[in-house]
């Protein structure tokens, strides 16, 4: 209903302005029968160009003011996060400098050189020096960004599997996530979708005859010990999915028929993150908003109050319930993690009809 009312109001505003333009039009009859810009048009639109420049700056400032705390450029929870955030902030700063200057020049020139009858423009067709300068400057700046970016990219993507690495399989299906841990033997058992046996609750297609698979642990929550490198081996059983873990600055597609991988080291436990003042402020803000929509949220059966948690969400269109494909991630101390994993059922014992 709100939407409809809004539409109607907008429509009325549109009609009002339309009528005003018509009046404006009628008032002009006879003064010129051509629709080419007159000096008056040039003047009005020249000033509007300056107005628009101010609008661009204003919307930039307003966006920073109201939405400035949204971007994930601080408080990352992985080892490579701060480096990435730094590169992001520097790129952003660069963009804003260039944006501010070029938009100024564009709109200021449009205002300054607005046409007047009788004036002649400067015949100025070429200047090789100038063009060389503005070819060369982007080359240098971009070269710097490319080199920095590539070093960062290589160090993130080339994860080496060592003794210390925790290997976890992320398994995607319409529309949920599962995690599989290697268990005591630190080796994931073989798996293929052809081995899925729903009757025996072997939903991931783990090879029952593989000795490495017997102690694997399959869970619906992702627990990670803090400070330990984790390497995700990702599989999907049906369509493309993407494992997106924004707080860890991590993302990789899950592709049916192949195993993709992404690794990082979590650095902040869920508990610590909840105590972070920035996060607390964000959560308080969200909860204030949620209280305003109390009835609606409760009608949906969601918890009213929000508590911070790391999340894994699906970020590749995957079908009807794509918008609700998520898994909670809990980063905890090694002891907590050990206690949790010990409680989980191992694969061998999770099968039915044994």
């Amino acid at each position, binding site marked *: 209903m709100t*939407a409809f009312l809004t539409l109607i109001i907008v429509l009325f505003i549109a009609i009002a302005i339309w009528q005003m333009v018509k009046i404006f039009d009628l008032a002009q009859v006879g003064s010129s029968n051509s629709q080419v*810009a007159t000096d008056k048009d*040039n003047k009005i639109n020249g000033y509007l160009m300056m107005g628009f420049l101010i609008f661009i700056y204003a919307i930039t400032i307003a966006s920073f003011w109201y939405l400035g705390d949204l971007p994930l450029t601080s408080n990352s929870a992985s080892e490579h996060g701060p480096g990435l955030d730094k590169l992001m902030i520097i790129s952003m700063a660069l963009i804003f400098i260039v944006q501010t200057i070029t938009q100024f020049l564009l709109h200021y020139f449009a205002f300054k050189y607005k046409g007047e009858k009788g004036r002649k423009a400067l015949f100025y067709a070429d200047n090789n020096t100038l063009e060389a300068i503005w070819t060369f400057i982007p080359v240098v700046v*971009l070269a710097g960004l490319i080199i920095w970016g590539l070093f960062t990219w290589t160090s993130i993507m080339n994860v080496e599997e060592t003794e210390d690495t925790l290997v976890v399989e992320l398994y995607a299906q319409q529309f949920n996530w599962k995690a599989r841990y290697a268990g005591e033997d630190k080796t994931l058992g073989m798996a293929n979708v052809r081995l899925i046996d729903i009757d025996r609750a072997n939903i991931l297609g783990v090879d029952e005859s593989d000795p490495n698979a017997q102690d694997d642990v399959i869970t619906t929550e992702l627990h990670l010990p803090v400070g330990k490198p984790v390497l995700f081996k990702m599989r999907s059983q049906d369509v493309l999915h993407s494992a997106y873990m924004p707080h860890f600055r991590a993302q990789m597609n899950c592709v049916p028929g192949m195993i993709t991988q*992404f690794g990082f080291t979590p650095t902040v436990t869920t508990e610590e993150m909840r105590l972070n003042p920035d996060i607390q402020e964000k959560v308080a803000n969200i909860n204030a908003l949620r209280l305003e929509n109390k009835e609606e949220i409760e009608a949906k059966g969601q918890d009213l109050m929000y508590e911070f948690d790391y999340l894994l969400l699906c*970020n590749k*269109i995957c079908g009807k319930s794509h918008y609700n494909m998520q898994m909670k991630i809990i980063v905890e101390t090694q002891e907590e993690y050990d206690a949790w994993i010990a409680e989980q059922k191992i694969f061998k014992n999770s099968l039915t009809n044994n």
Partner: protein
Amino acid sequence: MSAHADTHAHDDDHGHHHKETFVTKYIFSQDHKMIAKQYLITGTIMGVIGVMMSMMMRMQIAWPEKPNVLFEALLGKWAPEGVMDADIYLALVTIHGTIMVFFVLTAGLSGTFSNLLIPLQIGARDMASGFLNMVSYWLFFLSSVIMCISFFVEFGPAAAGWTIYPPLSALPMAQGGSGMGMTLWLVSMAIFIASSLLGSLNYVVTVINLRTKGMSMTRLPLTIWAFFVTAIIGIVSFPVLLSAALLLIMDRSFGTSFFLSDIFIQGEVLHYQGGSPVLFEHLFWFLGHPEVYIVLLPALGITSEIIATNSRKPIFGYRAMVMSILAIAFLSTIVWGHHMFISGMNPFLGSVFTFTTLLIAIPSAVKAFNYITTLWKGNLQLNPAMLFSIGLVSTFITGGLTGIILGDSALDINVHDTYFVVAHFHLVMGISALYGMFAGIYHWFPKMFGRMLNKNLGYLHFWVTAICAYGVFFPMHFIGMAGLPRRYYTNSNFPLFDDTANANVVITMFALVGGIFQLVYLWNFFYSIFFGKKTVQNPWRSNTLEWTAPVEHMHGNWPGEIPHVHRWAYDYSKPGHDDDFVPQNVPLYDGEEELQH
């Protein structure tokens, strides 16, 4: 290297016309000007459909799962009691993208202006093959009709995103839209590609062979350079999408495994073995990325022409502009992998694509700076066409700059497939190309219909659109950087994103106002076709050849001989001339030097 173009047969012919019936004049016309108008009208209708879809999506995002009379009226069974269904949301996402990218900004933009301007600006009687040109339009029309029919099939239209990645698009059991809807999508696109190829071949052949006497390649207006290079990119890359579509049809209907392997869905294992969805992504983006430039280059060409004309100045750095078009065209075919940094392909490949992608920023920057310098010390005629051109430069800069982030593989990890990407490409190719199209329409409307568009409505249209475009897409970057994924039917299952909800409402408001104000343009457009003020022959005092042709359209474009060309298209305000423009067909006076470029 100028090619003498007039064919004698044509010259002899134009005096005594063949009888034209309604059908040969308005429907199965082989005249490039009529075909251009047909493209424009069809593109406009598709554009209205595409924009309405985006309005519905925005309303769903701002007020998720709320009943809405508009949904009930337009979506029927897909909005029971006015609440939009999650399946149809994805279908809207998909069809909005497909229609806007291909049907509006490829066919509507290139089809209209390449057809209208190539013969008129190079001094040719018509396209090299009028018949192929006609076939090209009617194939486009057919593909539009099939795409629209797909809205009405039982399980809805294609809903796998405009990128139709398999397996989602390949398996009818994966989602409703992957059944008959996807079949129609593929058929429609295959026909569309055939249409586009016929058109492109025609443009290339016409530009190479039919230039009038004196029209050397270095005297071509930048519009023609842009259309010419765009057509070449299309010829190189569209067939690859066609092959991808054909292979996908094989996988869907004949049980092959090009893109599918190891799939378990709805309780059964499928037989597919050994294919890879990543292969499809490569094939798709081998077109998909050049497609961005197929959309953008014509808009930039149009802008070059309009900015020079209305600044009453030569375009700054003609040679650099041509070189940058060529550089962009070349680089555009080797950057497709930047859509796939996290697709599971080898990270080293990602490094290579980062390198090529950031290279393409260089010619783009050169173009932006050259536009700004063209304005400098000009005598700017701020017509609606000029405003849209300046608007294009503005959104091209704002949208292009964030490409530096998305093209950087490391930074892409965390913003990939978020609203940051949506904001980026809508500004840099969606809005920019749309502005280019509007600029072209305001500028060449007199050439097409012999009448003028109302300028005050044009001003109103521009300023509201400009404000709304920034109002929609600027704040959207921030939402994207918060990690909000695109293509979510509702965000309400993620309390984490609750603090983006208000911004989304504001964005939707801007979108609705901007969308509704396009009615001002539509009214202006259709009203002026019939009742607009009659135009003079050269209303903008422009140099290019199309304005030497009579206002009343005639078959063959010029009565008598085709004008010969003696100079480039940008002799505006040249010292030594009384007027501030010197059309290309005016010979050099004694002792006048032609600018060397």
